[in-house]
């Protein structure tokens, strides 16, 4: 037993002195808790951008009463950030023209006749309910003949009225892409909201039909969405989780010293590391695309411009993250410390860059953090070029990635000491 305690003590000490051990055992779980806690435990803080187009207006251009109440309710719910889409805009074309910006591709269209539909449906529901109740009363043994006659007359009146009600079937149209990372959440919330609106506004369980419209130029699945995300993640993880420790280890073991004793130039060394990362990325991309195609029927946009932009983004992303990896691996001489710092930076980026979760599911302060993440811009560009086929955020994302690459190249050239100092 004493030996077991001694062995346990030795392992505990080793763990305590291992920075990566400490990170993954103590800091990483807390990090996950904070991120996922922020995302999932404060749903009241989540807001979804949503366009509303109200076609239920009179000749004077004034919105019908119930359509106004509906929009007002959407606004007051706190779940949606509403923008109004003018009536003369074609919703489908508008949604498609917004390309990669999912937030601007969600539109709910209130159809012409929405007000009448709800009022008539409510009256119909009330009449049907009244007719049922009167029919039950007519069979009652406690009513005399006079009372029964009065009720029969009223019943006939109600039936006549019911026949007169003409309900023109309309439905709320929701334009959304299934590739939208918030698709599941948004559809569920909208269904609940519309159902609640139908019940609370009319006092009856009026079912307001919903028609979902896929706006994708191609029908996209979750797998389509995740292929570019995984490629972006791989580019980051190779550099931050792997390269940092490798570079530090080369220094610690003296291999770096052997290399710098040759006429090799500093930039040749750094770009050599970049080329190795790039080969790795292209290999893993080919594998991921092949698995996606054969196992999940993932279809990527294959026109030459999109392929070129995707490859260009991969190269830029690899440049940027390789240089970050070189900087970290150069600063810290202990591989353990370098790898830990890579994890400390990499894991938050992984969750905060819209790679696995849409960033709008996060509180606003985390969304601000995402705006500083190179992974966010890489993932957006790959998504637009590989699956959406349109370039909305791509120009700005590419520019930011290029600037970051240059900044980290300068940092890596400056920090990599080409001496044994």
């Amino acid at each position, binding site marked *: 037993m004493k030996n077991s305690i001694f062995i346990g003590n030795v392992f505990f000490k080793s763990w305590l002195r291992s920075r990566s051990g400490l990170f993954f055992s103590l800091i990483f779980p807390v990090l996950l808790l904070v991120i996922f806690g922020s995302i999932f435990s404060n749903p009241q803080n989540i807001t979804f951008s949503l366009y509303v187009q109200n076609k239920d207006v009179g000749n004077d251009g004034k919105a019908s009463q119930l359509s106004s109440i509906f929009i007002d309710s959407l606004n007051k719910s706190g779940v949606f950030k509403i923008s109004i889409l003018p009536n003369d805009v074609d919703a489908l074309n508008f949604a498609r023209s917004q390309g990669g910006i999912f937030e601007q591709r969600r539109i709910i269209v209130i159809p012409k006749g929405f007000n009448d539909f709800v009022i008539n449906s409510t009256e119909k529901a009330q009449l049907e309910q009244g007719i049922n109740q009167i029919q039950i009363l007519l069979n009652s043994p406690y009513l005399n003949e006079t009372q029964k006659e009065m009720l029969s007359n009223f019943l006939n009146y109600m039936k006549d009225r019911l026949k007169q009600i003409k309900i023109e079937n309309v439905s709320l149209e929701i334009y959304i892409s299934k590739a939208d990372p918030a698709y599941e959440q948004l559809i569920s919330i909208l269904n609940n909201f519309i159902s609640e609106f139908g019940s609370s506004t009319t006092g009856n369980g009026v079912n307001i039909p919903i028609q979902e419209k896929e706006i994708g130029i191609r029908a996209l699945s979750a797998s389509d969405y995740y292929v570019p995300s995984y490629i972006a993640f791989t580019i980051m993880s190779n550099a931050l989780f792997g390269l940092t420790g490798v570079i530090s280890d080369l220094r610690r073991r*003296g*291999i770096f010293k*052997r290399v*710098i*004793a*040759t*006429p*090799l130039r500093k930039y040749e060394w750094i770009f050599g590391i970049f080329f190795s990362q790039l080969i790795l990325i292209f290999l893993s991309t080919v594998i991921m695309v092949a698995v996606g195609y054969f196992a999940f029927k993932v279809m990527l946009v294959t026109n030459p411009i999109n392929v070129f932009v995707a490859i260009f983004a991969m190269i830029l992303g690899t440049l940027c993250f390789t240089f970050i990896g070189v900087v970290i691996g150069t600063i810290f001489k202990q591989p353990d410390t370098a790898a830990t710092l890579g994890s400390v930076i990499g894991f938050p980026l992984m969750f905060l860059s819209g790679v696995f979760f849409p960033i709008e599911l996060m509180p606003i302060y985390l969304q601000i953090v995402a705006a500083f993440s190179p992974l966010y811009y890489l993932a957006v560009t790959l998504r637009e070029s590989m699956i959406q086929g349109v370039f909305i955020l791509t120009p700005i994302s590419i520019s930011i990635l290029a600037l970051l690459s240059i900044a980290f190249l300068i940092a890596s050239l400056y920090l990599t000491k080409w*001496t*044994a100092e």
Partner: protein
Amino acid sequence: MKVVEAESLTKKYGKIIAIDNVSFHVDKGEIFGYLGPNGSGKTTTVEILECLRKPDAGNAKVLGYDLKEANEIKKRIGVMPQNFAAFDLLTVEENVALIAKIYKKTKEDVKRVLDLLNLWEVRKRKYEELSGGTQRRVGIAMALVNDPEIVFLDEPTVGLDPEIRRTVWQVIVKLKEVGKTVFLTTHYIEEAERLCDRVGIIVKGKIVAIDSPRNLVNSLNLKYVVRVKKDPKVLSIIREEAEVIEENGYFSIKTDNRLIARKIAYELEMNGFEEIELKTPNLEDVFLKMIGAKITEAGELA
């Protein structure tokens, strides 16, 4: 011809003076030993000559090039750093070819050096699978593949067991035979004495002596010692002029003359004495006399 000329090299790390006003030269074709305990400034000196560190004061020329012409020097030298390691998962051939590629050398150059160091048979084996001695030979092969005029070997045998160490010594001797100049740092006195044409002894950043091992021994008038178990008969046997000292039940008979020492040992043997030890003064005695301490196997002063 001098291939290395160091003049008053000084290097400080903060307040610690690593090397202090160090001057020496290395002649073409010789094995120059740089002998000293751990922390004496050996690696700092060699790294300055390899253009991996800048001296705070002084200057040096390597193959006629000033240290400021680092690229010219790097093109012409071979280096095996202290605690050498290569890429574990690359083969012997791939590791050597990596350095060859940097120097724009050919596959034939790789083959030549692998042959020279008897590594051709193991060229397809991964570096991590090799024994310690073979790994050092790979390090020397990487240092030689650019056909350098001078090879810097920084503690090439440290950590190896004595048998494997000797195989590395054979390689170093071979380098001299093929015309290379070798700058060898070591804390093994025996290694310096056996391999080096000249030895520079460095302690606490200062060079205390430079010469051939034999000249260093001779310069200090160190004595030959015949050691035998204490016995009154010994004194009657010794007819030559010698100093006799009693130490822990033994007589140590000391003389300046090697022939006299041999004669005393012979006469003792003829008179039936056993376990006679004849000790020739060596570099270790030089070190002991100059520094007042020995260097342990681990490289520390004791």
